[in-house]
């Protein structure tokens, strides 16, 4: 019953934010085709996160930390279409201090994103560009917590397909602000089995993934991003971003939850 209630809340939330995104009214403006030419960028980003996670397979407690973040992206965009591929990596220590106990967990997180967005004509004009589409997100979280004995190491992998909405306000040719929202509609995960540790050690087989399970429709994923982009005279650009994501892996015996707030600074090199 508890799980059903959570699913309902999550589905309700997802539906609500998508409807809100699409129903915001666009103001009148100039024809869109005059606004933008096609650009191809390589983006290099660095920043930091504030994030927290909880892996019920090993602990009911939240661990939080401020890991470092870096990413590399390839972006193609014009007024009518936008696609992007990025690889991101974050690393840092997460901790929990409660009841006089201090626990530390090192976390490495690898992520890849691919998105294809297309213009929503009825909502866009020269100062406002609204695109919708889909995105693929892959994520692997490796953690190491020596205090958990033989469960000290854990790896969780998830892939999901999301519906995406991106709104860009074009203040002038040099300044623009974007808001991106992704809401999952298909989530898959690869996670430890019931006992978390596998029996590979007593069998001397050294198989880390021996008891891992692949599950379809196994969680939720939401992410959003604010991006302020400043175009430079040399056609390159600087970008300041705030990204938020939260996800939950379930359908396994015990769930995994993680949320991150990421602040980045990016250099966008124009290849055209």
């Amino acid at each position: 019953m508890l799980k059903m209630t959570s699913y309902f809340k999550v589905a309700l939330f997802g539906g609500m934010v998508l409807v809100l995104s699409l129903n915001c009214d666009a103001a009148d403006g100039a024809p869109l085709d005059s606004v933008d030419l096609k650009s191809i960028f390589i983006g290099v980003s660095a920043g930091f996160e504030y994030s927290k996670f909880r892996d019920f397979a090993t602990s009911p407690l939240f661990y939080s930390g401020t890991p470092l973040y870096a990413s590399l992206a390839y972006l193609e965009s014009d007024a009518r279409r936008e696609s992007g591929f990025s690889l991101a990596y974050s690393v840092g220590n997460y901790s929990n201090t409660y009841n006089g106990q201090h626990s530390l967990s090192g976390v490495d997180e690898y992520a890849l994103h691919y998105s294809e967005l297309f213009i929503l004509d009825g909502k866009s004009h020269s100062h406002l560009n609204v695109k919708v589409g889909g995105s693929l997100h892959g994520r692997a979280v490796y953690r190491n917590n020596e205090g958990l004995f033989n469960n000290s190491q854990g790896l969780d992998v998830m892939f999901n397909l999301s519906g995406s909405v991106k709104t860009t306000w074009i203040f002038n040719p040099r300044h623009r602000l974007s808001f991106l929202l992704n809401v999952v509609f298909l989530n898959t995960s690869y996670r430890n089995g019931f006992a978390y540790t596998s029996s590979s050690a007593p069998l001397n087989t050294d198989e880390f993934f021996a008891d891992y399970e692949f599950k379809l429709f196994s969680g939720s994923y939401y992410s959003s991003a604010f991006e302020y982009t400043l175009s430079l005279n040399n056609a390159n650009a600087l970008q300041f971003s705030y990204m938020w994501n939260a996800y939950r892996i379930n359908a396994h015996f015990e769930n995994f939850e993680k949320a991150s707030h990421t602040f980045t600074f990016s250099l966008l090199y124009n290849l055209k």
Partner: protein
Amino acid sequence: MKTYFIGILSISILCVSCENILFEEEQASKDPFVNLNYLWNQCDQKYPYFELKEVDWDSVRWQYEAQLFFGMSEDSLFNVMAAMLNELRDDHVNLVSSFATSFYGVEYSAQDNFDWRLIVDHYITPHYVLSGPFAHNFLANGEIGYVRLSSFQGTIDPSHLDYVLIRYRHTKGLILDLRENGGGAIANVFQILSRFVEKETTVYASRIKAGPGRNDYSEIQYAHVVPHDGIRYDREVVVLTDRGTYSSGSLFALAVKSIPNMTSVGDTTGGGLGLPNGGQLPNGWTYRFSITQTLSLTGDPSFENGVPSDSTVQFNWNATDRDEIIDAALLILD
């Protein structure tokens, strides 16, 4: 445009607050009832030896929950929960707080059968050789090799094993002393055993808890020792065990029963054949307990309670210059 900003702002606020919708409620708690029941449930679903150890886990819960009360000290709660875990009679079961670590102490359930100083003074002399974790020397006028391994911790360097086996290659037999060896890395067990087999040998079986029910296990899988492609020892090996031989030490003793040129002498080992996991309680303490069953080749899990030696010999503490267990091994190898 203004409406858009308001919409986006609303979505942003919703997004951040979404974490609370997406996530389950906060579960950190110092409540003694919450913590005892959390630990009891983890064991209830994952511990594999209730039946073998004839532990009525349901009645254990009532017995120890009755000792809890709101406002009890951390120390008192720790003692109650540690006592609950010790009902499992398993040294792979521990409760760890910032101020104490619980243990069962199976080695103290039998007499002591090991005295290193006696061995040095009357058998291997103070001029014994250290090769990594191995302490070793000749016995019986150079006809027998004695090798002491006090722990399976860390990673054994193959060059140390090479040196030991080359040094004793002309002996009639080898004594491998695993008394009071409390365990460590299981990979070391297989690395050593691989020097004593001439063909692939199946030594025991294992299965892991795969669901919350008492009989929810994975398929049984078998562990094999594969001969080392290098220096091996093909003569008789006598393994010395006692109640302090635990965990990986017990796995070694169980494997010895399947290897033709190996035999064991001494006391029954302490057991501890299950692989322990690890976890954390709502109050931040950590714990571990076994989540696998090790079975004999006939499917018997009872070696968890200790692996009996092939020849049972006890130390005689009245004879201060003799190690009766080494003497028995020398007789076997003579």
